[in-house]
């Protein structure tokens, strides 16, 4: 693999009048023990848009995403420095209630991970824990969220069945439904379709497009076609850095950085 000039970057900055920013990071660094995995990333994610993060494996896409709602707190030797700005707060601070924050910044994982409970309970479990007890409201929540992910017709007669009996694609859509049942601001999606078959993938992609009107989404993907299809903005990650960030059409047609160009034209991956 050829060496690239990693100091040269082209990162889009939004002006406040032009676009409201839902989430941004400043000089974000992630260390695993002594090893620096993310080497200072500054990005802004606009509200009600889908931003994709692409890049070769090992470039730190997932690590970066997982630090946005502080899931890296759970990794024993991980340390995250820098700012994560959300609602004019730096949420990478100790005084921020991390549980409350995760209600607003939800996450969907690479492998579908429904609870070993019924479909109904999968969606209502967390809202119940957070204090929603009204049965009719819970019923309503299940119906609306399942409709939002396009799963309602398929499962409405088997809500009491175990979620583990669903297909992989259905499970993943259930996981998305479970996350949006929390009514989050932001959805973080970590390669949500990589473990799915092509048909399920396209259903999940449609689901994301539908959700865009209400949610800000950041999606990590190794599938460039997927990024091109679903996202408004795309960031290219390389070796723990964000080298280029801009409108998706521009990243895929006229990239400014050599590394981006080589990557999107398939010279390495």
């Amino acid at each position: 693999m050829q060496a690239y000039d990693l100091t040269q970057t082209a990162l889009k900055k939004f002006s406040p009048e032009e676009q409201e920013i839902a989430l941004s990071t400043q000089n974000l660094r992630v260390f695993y023990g002594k090893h620096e995995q993310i080497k200072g990333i500054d990005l802004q994610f606009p509200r009600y848009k889908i931003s994709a993060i692409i890049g070769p494996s090992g470039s730190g896409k997932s690590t970066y995403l997982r630090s946005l709602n502080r899931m890296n707190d759970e990794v024993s030797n991980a340390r995250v420095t820098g700012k994560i700005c959300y609602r004019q707060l730096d949420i990478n601070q100790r005084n921020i209630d991390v549980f409350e924050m995760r209600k607003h910044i939800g996450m969907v994982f690479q492998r579908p991970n429904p609870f070993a409970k019924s479909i109904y309970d999968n969606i209502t479990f967390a809202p119940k824990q957070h204090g929603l007890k009204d049965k009719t409201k819970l019923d309503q929540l299940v119906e609306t969220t399942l409709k939002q992910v396009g799963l309602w017709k398929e499962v409405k007669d088997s809500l009491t069945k175990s979620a583990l009996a669903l297909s992989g694609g259905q499970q993943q859509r259930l996981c998305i439904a479970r996350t949006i049942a929390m009514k989050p601001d932001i959805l973080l999606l970590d390669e949500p379709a990589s473990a799915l078959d092509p048909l399920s993938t396209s259903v999940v992609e449609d689901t994301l497009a539908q959700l865009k009107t209400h949610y800000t989404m950041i999606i990590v993907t190794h599938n460039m076609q997927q990024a091109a299809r679903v996202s408004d903005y795309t960031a290219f990650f390389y070796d723990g850095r964000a080298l280029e960030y801009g409108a998706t059409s521009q990243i895929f047609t006229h990239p400014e950085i050599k590394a981006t160009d080589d990557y999107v034209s398939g010279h390495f991956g």
Partner: protein
Amino acid sequence: MNVKRQDKLATIILYVIAGAIILVLVALLAFILIQGLPHVSWHFLTAPARAFEAGGGIGIQLFNSFYLLVLAMLISVPLSLGAGIYLSEYAKKNWLTGLIRTSIEILSSLPSVVVGLFGFLIFVIQFNFGFSILSGALVLTVFNLPLLTRNVEESLASISHAQREAGLALGLSRWETVLKIIVPEALPGIVTGMILGAGRVFGEAAALIYTAGQSAPALDFTNWNPFYIASPLNPMRPAETLAVHIWKINSEGIMPDAVAVSAGASAVLIVAVLIFNLVARWLGQRLFKKMTSS
């Protein structure tokens, strides 16, 4: 001797060994059941023991065994759950956790007679509980805790990390996630371990002779007020269990039909342990099926 014949001989010897072990078990079970079961009757299971004459039963001892078991499990199950959850979910990988694990390992390998003597010193004398159900239940807890804790920890560790992430990503605390998602999923393993632990407690005697005591005063099965002295539920009364009873009548040698009573009591003990084993397996499998299938 050539290698082929050596191989054949070795195989034969291994078959003999395997057969011998099966034979030992069959002989053991046959001896106990053939000697003991004819002696087991409703009268035997319910009547109080008689010290100097034949024809006594094991009613009080049997009740004591169960009562002690229930109390010991009531104390040790929540404690081991808490400790197991801490070890598997919260403990960081450092020297302190290593030390905790080592001490649990040491506790699990201590001879039960030493645990019993410790219980005698602490509960019976220091806390002044005397020879009582309470002392016995506490010492059985000490005896049971390390194994149950390890079982809980291992059962929890076998559940995928993705399930914990799922809970946390929904803004739930680790505690809620573990208690309401991970523990139910790990239930087959936990329940199996608990029942096997119960079986071990049921047959334990060495830890009890100096804590729950070696006497079984008459009980009044019509008064269940736990504060009444002869009440079956009174936790402060001495309570000889079935296992201790077998040991005692054989060591004293004053009961004329000691062998018959011991055989009968042994048969009851073994049947109980068998039932514990079968129930553990059955319940474990059933729970597992219930968790995984739709």
